[in-house]
Each structure stands twice: as structure tokens, then as C-alpha cells.
């Protein structure tokens, strides 16, 4: 995993709530056996018509919006556990998703792929979306070390699990850590109630 550095970028606003992972990447695109190339089909059915022409009005297709930060409505990433949703966001170029609430599995998948989920209050989210929509050039700064996010003149702190923060800062993933616990795992297997 790549190290997560401070992100200073414009953002794409998506003021829709309960965005499920079927919208982020529809199931028919899950047939690949590698992690690459999912960005092309990110939000496929919201971005494109059936004949592959671009649907107007969707923020990702709106050229005034750009950047590596997605700012989305409450309960982002609900539904299916498909990590392909995180792969698609990363492949498209997003490094941060800001929302006022994240679904559990998506949040874990994002962190495991170097995408930082930043949870802010409903009020802060509404202010951010209003600012970005009013001025798409608004710069957002996401500072993981200090756990703060600023958008123009508004700023707030966010929570991140201390272990996960260290993983992001150093580019570590859980698998390395778990493999290092092999002796403890074997010892557990010997004493555990296993049925």
C-alpha cells in the first residue's frame, strides 16, 4: 500500500444519501480477476446511458468539478461488501471520501486500500457541498497527521483509528501484521474451544 500524504485538492460533490456499492460499481463489472481498471466503470449507470453516451448533470461528468476528494451524502458505501468499490474509487483517482456517515464494510475496505474515509458532521458536510457547488475551485486540505480537514475558511477535526492511521502513514497493511502474530495464533489454536 502507498503511504498516505497530506491531500490538497479540489473536490467532487455528490449530495446523494445512502449511496450503495452497487452504484459505485455495478455487479456486472465484478468479473475481473485483478484489482486494476475498475475506475472506468465507477458510478457506471449514473455516469453513462445504456448506449455509453455521457449522462448530463452527474457531478463526475461535470467538467467544472475535479480532484482527488469525493464529498458524498450520509451512509456512503452501504450494501455489498465488494472491495471493488474501493478499487474503483482509487483507480479513478480518489484518495479521500468525505461523508457524514460510512457503512462499516466500505470503511474497512477503503482503509485497506489507502483511501481515507473522513467522517464529518451533517452540518459540516452540507457546508462543504454548498461551498464546492458554489465555487468548484475551492481547495480542500486533508491532513491525516493532525486529523483535520479544511474547506476554504471552514475547518474541523476527524477521527481515525490510531492503528489504521499508522498503517496509512507508513503504507503498512494488516496482512503483514497478522503474519507476524503466527506464534500467538498457533498457541490460540491449541487452547481454543474448537467445534
Amino acid at each position: 500500500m502507498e503511504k498516505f500524504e497530506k491531500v490538497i485538492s479540489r473536490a467532487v460533490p455528490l449530495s446523494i444519501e445512502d449511496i450503495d456499492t452497487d452504484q459505485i460499481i455495478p455487479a456486472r463489472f465484478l468479473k475481473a480477476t485483478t484489482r486494476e481498471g475498475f475506475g472506468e466503470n465507477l458510478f457506471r449507470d449514473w455516469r453513462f446511458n445504456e448506449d455509453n453516451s455521457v449522462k448530463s448533470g452527474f457531478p463526475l461528468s461535470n467538467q467544472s468539478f475535479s480532484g482527488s476528494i469525493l464529498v458524498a451524502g450520509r451512509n456512503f458505501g452501504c450494501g455489498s461488501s465488494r472491495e471493488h468499490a474501493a478499487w474503483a474509487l482509487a483507480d479513478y483517482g480518489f484518495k479521500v471520501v468525505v461523508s457524514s456517515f460510512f457503512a462499516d464494510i466500505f470503511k474497512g475496505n477503503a482503509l485497506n486500500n489507502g483511501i481515507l474515509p473522513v467522517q464529518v458532521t451533517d452540518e459540516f458536510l452540507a457546508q462543504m457541498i454548498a461551498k464546492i457547488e458554489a465555487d468548484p475551485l475551492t481547495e480542500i486540505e486533508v491532513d491525516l497527521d493532525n486529523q483535520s480537514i479544511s474547506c476554504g475558511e471552514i475547518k474541523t477535526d476527524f477521527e481515525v483509528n490510531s492503528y489504521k492511521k499508522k498503517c496509512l502513514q507508513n503504507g503498512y497493511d494488516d496482512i503483514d501484521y497478522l503474519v507476524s502474530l503466527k506464534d500467538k495464533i498457533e498457541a490460540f489454536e491449541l487452547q481454543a474451544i474448537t467445534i
Partner: protein
Amino acid sequence: MGKTLFDKVWDAHIVDQIEGGLDVLYIDRHLIHEVTSPQAFDELTKRNLPLYRKEKMVATPDHNIPTKNQHLPIKEALSRHQVDKLLENCAKHDVELYGLGHPFQGIVHVIGPELGITLPGRTMVCGDSHTSTHGAFGAIAFGIGTSQVAQVMATQCLMQVKPKTMRITVDGELKPGVLAKDVILYIIAELTAAGGTGYFVEYAGSAIRALSMESRMTICNMSIEMGARGGMIAPDDTTYDYVEGREFTPKGEAFEAAKTYWKTLNSDTDAKFDKEYNFAAAAIAPMITYGTNPGMGIKITDNVPVSLGKGAQESFKKSLKYMGFDPGGSLLGKAISHVFIGSCTNSRIEDLRIVADYVKGKQKADNITALIVPGSKQVEKQAISEGIDVILKEAGFEMREPGCSACLAMNDDKIPAGAYCVSTSNRNFEGRQGPGARTLLASPLVAAITAVEGKIVDITKHLN
């Protein structure tokens, strides 16, 4: 203070505790399928790691596979490649695999319980959010992403923040025509699609106790649809009777010893939950969804709401526009073109029997295409032995071979754009059953009656 059922099972699986409040949790059984495992196997290869405990894994293809002519090679190249990749990976790592044609093949959440792989007190994971199904046995079971699939393959462990606990109690007797699917759709409508996020749910109360194992699975299956990582039900005689004698259930003395342990798996009377909800079974009626998330459900005779709570207005409007419904309107009389009975929520023998009982001697309406897909080869075999296949065929239903089918539009079974489908599956998201398809989630009984009537009706007036 007493412990909850969830605490008891969780705490018995903690290998280590690390900074940030993370527990290293031991996983007893790992189920895999073709869609979320190839990149995990690659991860092992890339890191030169062996598969740690192959005997704790079981694989089956289900998402991608056609439900017709399963004896022939899969036509669609990408699907075939993904299923072949599963076969190849399982052969390379010597993982137990129930491929197409195997008598144990089926939807991963149907075969786990029916083979006795799912047992009380176990921790179980799968790269699929409906792994919550297995919680019906008093197991801690939840869906994971592919990076975590690789972690479990490499170490049989996961790093997890312990979720908060929620108890949902449903007391009393369910009314005629109200099934487990209605109970869970009702609960999700009450709590919303995010109401359970951050929690692990225990379902309790006399109405839950009275349910069969298959009905309990339907309830736990949809825990994820309110955002909960999983749901569980304390094991009891219904559970022991179900698991006894199954393929991989311990036998003889080992079974008795297991049962003694299982009997300790319930929430202590003084256990504290982070959140509690209580519902009366009598308040629950046959349900249906009108919108594009499973929290958007109503009693079939109720009107579509005029608005949703603050904030969700945009999504609510977008959702009704997609579905072609009016705020405040009724769904009764709405013509339907497709009925799908299947998925890990409702494809077990009990579900097929409910449909067959209703449609026996009746005909589906002319405007309806009715698809019924058993959850596994074993369910299919049982259905045929009971003559259910003949009853369904005579009623104009098409019974297919086991798989996820039209639940997720990943295989050949799709609902056309704009078409309305009353479906026993678990998700009514935009495009879930095919681009532009409009899904109304309901019980197998509502689905069967809709197929015969050709439109949405008050089913309580049509019970046999």
C-alpha cells in the same frame, strides 16, 4: 455484569488485542466464491505466503453462474474465466470445492448451513455481505472485503474493532400470511438502512423463537440491509435439531459435547446491550418495498410516504423517480411483469414449499414471467422429490438450477430496464437486478400471489 451472546462468542475468539481497540479475531470457517476470492489468492502468491488452514475453507461458485444448462461450459467468457480461476486456485491450494454439477453446490449461504459447516458458537466470514445469514445458528458471521479474505487465508485471523451490541425483540404471534421476510423488512423500515451501522444485532423474543431455522436465516440474512455487520439468534432445540446429522456436524459423543457448550450460548439476563428495540409481532403485516434501499418498505396496503425524515429528501425523490411511483400513492393494483423467487434470503426448501402450496392448481397471470431458483443442488433435489418442480411448471413458473441468479444481475438472469419485479431477494438498489430494473422486495408468499394475480394485491384477501 452479564455477557451477551455476541460477547461470549467474540471473546472466545480473541487471539490478541492491539492498539486502537482492535481485536485479532480467530475465524473458524471461511467460505469463498468466485467473485471476491481471485485477487486474494493472488495476494498470497505475490507475498509468497502459504494458505494457512485449508481445512477451514469451503468454496463454491454461485454469483456468476448461469442457472440453465449447468452441465455445459459457461458461455460468457468473463464469467467462465472467473469460475475457472476458482477451480484452479482451489486445486492449487487443495481447498474443498463444490463446483457446478457437484451435489453440494449452491449459494454459499445456503450450503454452509445445510452441510453443517455453520454451527453455533463459530466465527465465520465470507467475501459477501450476506454472510450475516449464518448468525441464525448463534454464530458470529459477517461479510468482508477481498483484502480481508487474503488475511484470513494467510492467518485465519482478522483485525476488528468490536462492534456495539443491539437487541431487537419481537414478541407475540405473527398474523396469518406474515413470514420472516415481512418481519425483517418491517424492522429495517423502522430502523432505516443505516440504523444498525456499527452494531451487531441479536434477535430475540417469542416470535423469533417460534421461527424455523430457515426463517431465522432469512431474518439474519438481511441484518446488513440496516447497516449491521451481522445478526444472531441464540441456539435452542430448533437449532440443535436442524444441525444434527448433517454432513459436517460432529457426530455421537462429539455432538453431545458440542451441545453442552452450545447451551451456554445465550445472553445473560443481566447483560447490557448498547441499544434495544422492541416490536410486537401483531403489528407486522405483509410488507413490500417501494424505493431503492431496503429501508424503504411499507405494509403492502399502506401508501408510499409523502416524504422521509430530514436530510434524506434528495435520495427519496430520486428513488421515487427511478421507481416511477408517486409520493403518497398506493401500490395496490400496480401491474408487475416479473417475479423472482430465490437468492440467499429466500431460496430454501421452506420458501419453495410456500410458493408451491399457494400456486398448486393455479396459473400465473399472462403478464408475468416467473422465475424460481433453488438455493442449492440439495434444495433442488428435495423440491423434485416432493413434486414441487411439477407443481411450479404446471403453474407456469420456470424453475432453474441453483445460483444467485437475478438477485444481482451478474449472470444471464436479468430484469429488463423499466420492468417491475417483485423479488424475494435482499436488495432493491437501482440497477441491482439489471440496468434500469425496478425491484420490489417481498416475501415468497407475496411473490407467489403477485405472480398469480399479475399485480400488487392485499394478500390477506388471497390466502389459501
